């Protein structure tokens, strides 16, 4: 038998919580407060990779600029070369019947 009654002890605990500005939670219920308290991680996640500078960004920023985008020209030339050899990507399927993935399963 403790020297001090349990009710008195819980009263003391609640008073202590009010003084030190902590939450009084005698039954240890999970309040989910940790999800609100934790810092947001998104902003620092976005900063991980160094920013890519592309000519197309400037062309978009200043509509009248029209700098020559060598990367884009190269990409188009490569694609044209592939298509000329019949090695380009197939056209997107418009209907379900055209879908090769479905045709294979049957």
């Amino acid at each position, binding site marked *: 038998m403790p020297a001090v009654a349990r009710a008195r002890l819980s009263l003391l605990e609640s008073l202590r919580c009010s003084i030190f500005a902590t939450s009084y939670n005698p039954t240890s219920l999970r309040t989910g407060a940790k999800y609100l308290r934790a810092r947001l991680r998104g902003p620092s*996640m976005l900063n991980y990779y160094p920013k890519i500078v592309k000519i197309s960004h400037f062309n978009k920023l200043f509509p009248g600029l029209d700098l020559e985008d060598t990367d884009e020209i190269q990409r188009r030339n490569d694609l044209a070369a592939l298509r000329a050899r019949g090695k380009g990507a197939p056209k997107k399927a418009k209907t379900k019947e055209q879908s090769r993935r479905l045709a294979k399963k049957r």
Partner: protein
Amino acid sequence: MPKIRVLRDMKARAGVAENEILRRAYLFVARNQSLPAQVRYQAQLQLNTFGRYTRPTTVKNRCTESGRGRGIISEFGLCRFQFRLKALNNELPGVRKASW
């Protein structure tokens, strides 16, 4: 141009940053035992509707130089080989090859 896996990771990072506050709010409701079970269940269902690239666990730190996913030295954000190359080139301040 970064490799596809790096691009995918960038997409995941953008998605996490965009949806973080809403997800946290739902998490708070779903994990709060003082709320009615019905409400918590609804919040959990809402959490399940978020896409793959909105969860912070889908984000992986990849090598900022080569895009490699394994053997990353997190202090520099580089994989072990890129770290070695840069260190030997004196491109990492304060990093020297050990010799004794």
